[in-house]
């Protein structure tokens, strides 16, 4: 019998706690497939954030550290400096990375720390119950922007990869989306490229994944995927913003 699909070795045989329709599960799997394909699982140390993915260490079959809110890039710096031969990745959401952890992510990129960041942008705080994030769209209703995000009060959503792309220490920066199979394949390619950048010692690498939060968006999974495509992609353009070769592909 031919096996056409199986759980990656880099994932534990464990059901996740993620809500139905949430794309965290897809991203977990894409990262795990890349670790398998590159044969680096046993040399990888992951760093979990505070947020919905705080329990990532339960789902990956590799060594893991759990970091304080926003501090994953500093923790990853400590890990990578002690064991440069290990592969290190942080897995962070938009509250963790783009709000409380802005100093840590910017300076890790500035120093050209040779690790990979998987950045989940779902335009909201998920774990705490749907508060406004720095990435929340203008007009988007959350528990702390009940009348919709108002730019005059809360500013415009932050574009992380564009901001980081001014830093020379960043080797690879890409934004992808998870709203259909074609985009998911592109996302995997970007994640692979990020880990290859790390393997080649070409500096900091980050992939931003436009993701869903059906529960806190008040949508069903299909509507949520549609919302990513029609509302988020126009504001958060997809593509490679920086590559080790120096090119852009948007």
């Amino acid at each position, binding site marked *: 019998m031919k096996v056409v699909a199986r759980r990656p070795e880099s994932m534990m045989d464990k059901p996740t706690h993620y809500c139905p329709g949430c794309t965290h599960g897809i991203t977990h799997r894409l990262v795990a497939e890349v670790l398998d394909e590159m044969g680096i699982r046993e040399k990888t140390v992951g760093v979990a954030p505070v947020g919905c993915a705080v329990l990532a260490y339960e789902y990956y079959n*590799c*060594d*893991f550290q759990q970091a304080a809110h926003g501090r994953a890039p500093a923790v990853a710096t*400590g890990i990578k400096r*002690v064991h440069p031969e290990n592969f290190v990745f942080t897995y962070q959401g938009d509250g963790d990375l783009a709000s409380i952890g802005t100093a840590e992510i910017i*300076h890790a990129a500035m120093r050209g720390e040779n690790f990979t960041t998987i950045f989940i942008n779902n335009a909201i705080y998920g774990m705490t119950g749907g508060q406004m994030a720095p990435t929340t769209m203008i007009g988007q209703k959350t528990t702390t922007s009940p009348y919709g995000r108002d730019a005059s009060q809360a500013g415009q959503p932050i574009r992380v990869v564009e901001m980081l792309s001014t830093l020379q220490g960043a080797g690879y920066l890409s934004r992808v989306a998870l709203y259909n199979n074609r985009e998911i394949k592109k996302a995997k390619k970007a994640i692979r490229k990020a880990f290859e950048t790390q393997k080649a010692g070409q500096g900091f690498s980050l992939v931003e994944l436009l993701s869903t939060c059906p529960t806190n968006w008040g949508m069903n999974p299909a509507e949520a995927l549609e919302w990513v495509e029609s509302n988020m992609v126009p504001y958060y353009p997809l593509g490679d913003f920086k590559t080790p070769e120096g090119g852009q592909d948007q």
Partner: protein
Amino acid sequence: MADKILMKGNEAIGEAAIKSGCRYFFGYPITPQNELPAYMARRLPNEDGVFCQAESEIGAINMVYGASASGARVMTSSSSPGISLKQEGISYMAGSELPGVIVNITRGGPGLGGIQPAQSDYFQAVKGGGHGDYRTLVLAPQSVQEAVDLTMEAFDLADKYRNPVLILGDGMIGQMMEPVEFKRDISPEDLPDKEWATVGNKGRKPNIINSLSLQAEKLEELNVRMQKKYQQMKEEEVRFETIKTEDAEYVIVAFGSMARIAMGAVEKAREEGIKVGLIRPISLFPFPDEVIGMVAEQARFMLTLEMNCGQMVEDVRLAVNGRCPVYFYGRSGGVVPTTGEIYEQLMEQVRGEKE
């Protein structure tokens, strides 16, 4: 035995760390500890080590977290306002049971405060400091030599208990130059592997470094286990010095720089035929309450001296537990009292006692 060399306290602490097998230092500038990161920035690249200047004290302590969880001996240093910023990370280290040495070259507070020597971070150091039910070992040197010895010990204790250890100094200890001797020189290769470290899970289940525990009963189990650790510290790690306490009627309790200054007052009083002794806590957590309680049996009073507005005095009172009166004298904001001033304070209490 190695030769003595003249060194500034901050630099001597750095060298003591290197000679304890520490090859990783993460820091951020703040006065009066700047010589320590600068020393590590000079020395570590020549020792196959890493010095990294972090974006903030918060960044630095979290780099310490990552490096410690990777199995390395690691240090950071700061001064009071910066130590406040590190408290979140220290709490996470305690909760994740990670070793590490944190140096606080204390300055006067609160807020931005000043840059002169103070002991006003005593509460923060010995009562936990950050959120949650945890303690760090706290060691308080009174000389550059003792700063060296305690730094070396701090790395061993951190590994023994898988717990952060604080060196609580002040600008006087950090800036002063004294002859020092390094009594050991171990390299990282001499240290045993830490089987719990995250270094890649070849041939074993993943190692997880974590302080999250969503089930209350599980988290309580962790707390109970940590309390056992603190109990063991209380049984095995109490460090103190007693000076002329055997026949003392009046007993000074002071730590660090303050104890050193108080020594002059003890000697002067003894010359006058007044039976004064000194108890100097070296470990502030665990606190030497047993010896303080014992000496209190014979003392007519105890006088706690601190370079703050009265913090350790609360622990002295708990240790004395009503056996004798406990008085307090302190200067704060970076004012360092003189020996003469201490002697006067002491004599005032002695005269009051006799009236």
